[in-house]
């Protein structure tokens, strides 16, 4: 719990990182949102259908748009309204529902940017003191190619999880277990059990790779296989602490999602309410990002509390370049 609290403290002491990753999320999503806006505006044109679409939900128009849409447009559905959006994404994630190529492309870009930033973020949390932009991006640059190599391993593991194990669980085992079941509730509980199995595997994989990153940064490791081995060793020796920390962080995630389920704005009207609704959505996104960062920071804190002293980072402090004014002085 002290690592958990320490993790939250480290994230809160570095608000620029939270704001930065939020800005990154905004920047990646903004071009697509602009493209979507263009498609919607073109379809609505000067139509009176836009009046009802602006003041509430014009479900008829939404369906008409959806029926004619291609590419990005096919994702415009009522499920984007309020908490439905979260359910849709969580459900798609757990059910391994394919998304359109353009969404996959955006997500891949987003993930690649996170891989770049991961070194800087963990380095900042590991040092637990300001590193400034130069230090942050220097660390990000140092670890980017290492984490790219790690990402290859991650990709293989997740490809196995989503490409082999998920279909085996949900397209083979689930139909077999429920083949003769005539009670929906029973089938649901079986599905929940399989979600748990898949979730535990996912959690194990992400936790392993998280600690691999932490060890790579804190111990300045160059071999990602070595980092994974180190993470495995750490988890083996401190399994209870790591699991407890994961559960505490997952509880944070559930809390943020639960809160949003209460306050998520509905369709609303155009104008000020539209922006208030958007702001609520951004607070939720900030909350999710904060939880993501707390995961990394608390795992870093746990690792440092067990195998190093708090704030220990093997890699030397970034050396600042001389100011151009130095020329004038000399």
């Amino acid at each position, binding site marked *: 719990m002290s690592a958990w609290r320490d993790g939250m403290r480290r994230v809160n002491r570095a608000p620029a990182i939270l704001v930065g990753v939020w800005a990154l999320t905004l920047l990646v999503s903004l071009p697509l949102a602009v493209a979507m806006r263009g498609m919607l505006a073109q379809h609505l044109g000067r139509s009176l259908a836009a*009046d009802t679409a602006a003041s509430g939900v014009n479900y008829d128009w939404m369906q008409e748009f959806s029926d004619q849409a291609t590419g990005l447009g096919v994702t415009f559905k009522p499920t984007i309204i309020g908490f439905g959006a979260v359910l849709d994404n969580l459900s798609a994630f757990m059910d391994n529902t394919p998304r359109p190529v353009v969404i996959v492309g955006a997500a891949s870009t987003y993930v690649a940017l996170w891989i770049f930033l991961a070194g800087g973020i963990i380095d900042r949390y590991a040092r637990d003191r300001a590193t400034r932009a130069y230090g942050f991006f220097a660390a990000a640059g140092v670890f980017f190619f290492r984490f790219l190599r790690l990402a290859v391993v991650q990709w293989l593991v997740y490809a196995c999880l989503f490409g082999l194990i998920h279909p085996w669980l949900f397209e083979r085992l689930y139909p077999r277990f429920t083949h003769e079941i*005539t009670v929906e509730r029973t089938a649901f509980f079986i599905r929940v059990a399989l979600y748990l199995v898949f979730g535990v595997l996912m959690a194990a994989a992400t936790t392993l790779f998280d600690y691999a990153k932490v060890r790579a940064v804190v111990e300045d490791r160059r071999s990602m296989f070595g980092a994974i081995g180190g993470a495995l060793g750490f988890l083996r020796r401190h399994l209870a602490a790591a699991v407890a920390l994961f559960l505490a962080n997952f509880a944070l995630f559930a809390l943020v999602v639960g809160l949003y389920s209460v306050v998520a704005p509905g369709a609303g009207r155009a104008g000020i309410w539209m922006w208030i609704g958007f702001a609520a959505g951004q607070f*939720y996104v900030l909350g999710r990002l904060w939880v993501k960062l707390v995961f990394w920071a608390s795992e870093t804190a746990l690792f440092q509390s067990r195998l190093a002293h708090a704030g220990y980072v093997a890699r030397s402090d970034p050396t600042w370049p001389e100011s151009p004014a130095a020329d004038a002085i000399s």
Partner: protein
Amino acid sequence: MGRPLATALLLVVTGHAVAWAQSGGTGAVTPPRSPRNANYTITARLDPSTRTITGAETITWRNITTKPATDLQFHLYWNAWKSSRTTFMHERALRSTGLGPRVDDRRRNPDEWSRIDVVSIRVGARDLSASKRFIAPDDENPDDETVMVVPLDPAVEPGGTATIDLTWTAHVPRAFARTGAIGNFFFIAQWFPKLGVLLDEGWNCHQFHSGTEFFSDYGVYDVSLTVPSGWPLGATGVQRERRDNGDRTTTYRYYQEDVHDFAWTTSPDYLERTARFEHPTLPPVEMRLLLQPEHADQAERHFDATRTTLKYYGEWYGAYPYGHVTIIDPAYQSGAGGMEYPTLFTAGTRWLAPSRVTTPEGVTVHEAGHQFWYGIVGNNEFEDAWMDEGFNTFSTARAVAQVWDPNHLALRYFGGFIPWAFRDVVINRETDGNRLSGYRRDAKSDAQSTPSYRYFPATGGSITYNKTALWLNTLERWLGWPTLQRIMATHFDTWKFRHPKPADYFDTVNEVAGRDLGWFFDQVYRSSNVFDYGVQDLTSARDDRNEFRTTVIVRRWGEAIFPVDVLVTFRDGERVTEHWDGKDRWKLYTYDRRAQALSAQADPARVLLLDVDYTNNSKTLEPQGGRAATKWSLKWMVWLQDGLLSWVSLI
């Protein structure tokens, strides 16, 4: 559920069944409403362990045509699921991917397929078992054995009668087309050798197709069914006898006059509830509900929906004449939900069924409504499925709107288990109830006049259900509900317990409406053309006389033609309505006013519900498209960001 509790429950259930049978009538309809020319006395035994049915039947059939019958043609529907090579299975593959059998069909165990084998057939004293053969009148598929023909010698003359005795065995499949078994749940429909319909032009006995249903003559059904003791049984008609056989089986005898089919179901898990429909001017109806234990709290929702149907369909079209109806809540995964049979229908609900979302109400109203459109008015569902499915889709939407308004969109997540109701999204009778979205996608797939069984399997439903409901609602909006109600009631009254054809309905429309609407049916029935009217342009600029010259160009983008109003609204509140016959490709309206125009709308009252693009029906000089697009793209952006965060949780 523990065994003692289950036994006690079943005793209660059985006791209720007897009480209901006594109060619910006898199954007799006096005087006869139908020709009763195909009467079946059936005895059958279900062996749940092997999932087999052994049956014997006697058909008393009368030739009511003007031609002699030289053969008999029977439907053997369950042979449609004998292999993947049947016509039904070929079409079923086309309904999914078109690339081969559905995944769940490929994974079927051998005992999950079905078959029906006629062991013997006698006509009078003559044993014709050796002369029976299979034909495939629709596609000559040699692997399709869903139609059996037996030659008659001598022929049965017009007005003559034949007594046909058959014995057969059948294997119950895992559900196909709402028929089959899962666990201890059995839903048995289209299960016995059944005569086609002899018309003056010959036998109308189609193969079983995946996209269409059935057609048979009216008659009397007297059916004795033997099932394991303690298994509640629901069936067409009224229970007249119950006999415990002493071998852990019980035989139930069900009887019903003036129906054209017989279906039944049994399961040890059923809970039974009863209720009664009463109305000041309509006859009372005893309602019996067999439902799944996990839906026990939804019994009243099923009864309310059935009452709604009996009330509104009864008031609009004509009374339900049988005095009893059985509602079946099928087991999960049984595939038996949402299907109609005479005096019995299957509804369908979910364990989690939020309020103000019409599950189970929508499907219950629809299937109960089929008692009127299919049960009482017996059109040929192979060829003119729209005459019951379309009429009933329209009527369902209309009835649901009377009671459950507003109701909301619900989507399901996590394997389809978890519903989420979108309280902002109100389901609209005209567009959602009549299923405009599905029609829009498939509008050109087939002309409605094509025999239904020849519709492209994947899109035929949109033409059968959606298009008909949309053009009926269009007629309602154009002619007015009182006129359309008279049309439907007249058609119902004229053709109850008979087999109407499309021309019969069109004749009724013309007669009651007092005008020839052939041009309308040329558009909606005889062609696959689509309607798409709209405003191409609206300008309103000050001229040299300091007046605003307003020009409106309306256009017909679709091929189909319908008269539409054009409404032009000015800033001073003036509203000008033009009546355009809609025949030309475009029409120009010009106005000189002191006030500038605000908007122009083609079909402002949205009479023409078949218009596939209503967004282009209006133009305004104060467009809100940008604001609306911004609002919705911001919502979409939050959805996208949340989705991105799901991905990033992996790194």
